């Protein structure tokens, strides 16, 4: 059966519970639904907000390529990715990945794979807005994120 795939790039907040329920309700062969949510942190009160910029068109294309790769690697029944752009306050959800499968291994692994690839390939950039009103810095990419992606490459 073809997996049900939904991915969106949007400014609006997402509802985690309803996205999980939608995948859990796909059929009685669903045995596992895994979800990951990335949130905006305050960095100890230093940050007022994070502003997410994206490359419209390429962001969707790139998420689509990563999704295609995930469904060829794992037996998924459903997959939802929502990545937001615009101004995020501490506590706001920025990205949501939900995966559904018959068994937990596929759901867990696919969700981790999708997040590792989104971090390093999806064209989004975070800018800090500081609580003290000073002009914010662009968040720097982490080498750890590049290393996280490498663990999936030795398996292919």
């Amino acid at each position, binding site marked *: 059966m073809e997996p049900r795939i939904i991915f969106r790039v949007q400014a609006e907040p997402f509802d985690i519970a309803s996205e999980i329920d939608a995948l859990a309700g796909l059929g009685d062969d669903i045995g596992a639904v895994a979800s990951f949510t990335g949130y905006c942190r305050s960095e100890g009160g230093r940050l007022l907000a994070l502003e997410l910029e994206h490359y419209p068109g390429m962001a969707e*294309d790139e998420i689509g390529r990563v999704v295609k790769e995930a469904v060829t690697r794992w037996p998924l029944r459903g997959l939802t990715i929502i990545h937001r752009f615009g101004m995020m306050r501490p506590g706001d959800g*920025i990205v949501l990945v939900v995966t559904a499968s018959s068994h937990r291994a596929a759901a867990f692994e696919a969700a981790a794979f999708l997040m590792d690839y989104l971090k390093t390939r999806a064209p989004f*950039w*975070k800018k800090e807005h500081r609580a003290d009103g000073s002009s914010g810095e662009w968040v720097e990419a982490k080498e750890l994120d590049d290393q996280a992606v490498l663990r999936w490459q030795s398996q292919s």
Partner: protein
Amino acid sequence: MWLNSMTEIKLVYFAWVRERIGLAEERVDVPSSILTVAELAGWLQERGEEYAYAFENPGIVRAAIDRKHVKPDALIAGAQEIAFFPPMTGG
């Protein structure tokens, strides 16, 4: 003369590359002697101090041709839209 021919390409910039250059996008006439993304970045660097600032560390700026990630040695022939941006920090 053929050697001096130019190709008009749409360039788009994101995050601090956009801020340093001071433009989100522009159309530029690129000399046909410019073959690769790295050569294009080097050519842009000569256009003014804002470009020199954006590309001061050419190893860090990433590029996409027609919305696909490319390496610095990628050929730009036939490109409709070339993007330059810092390493991504989404997720």
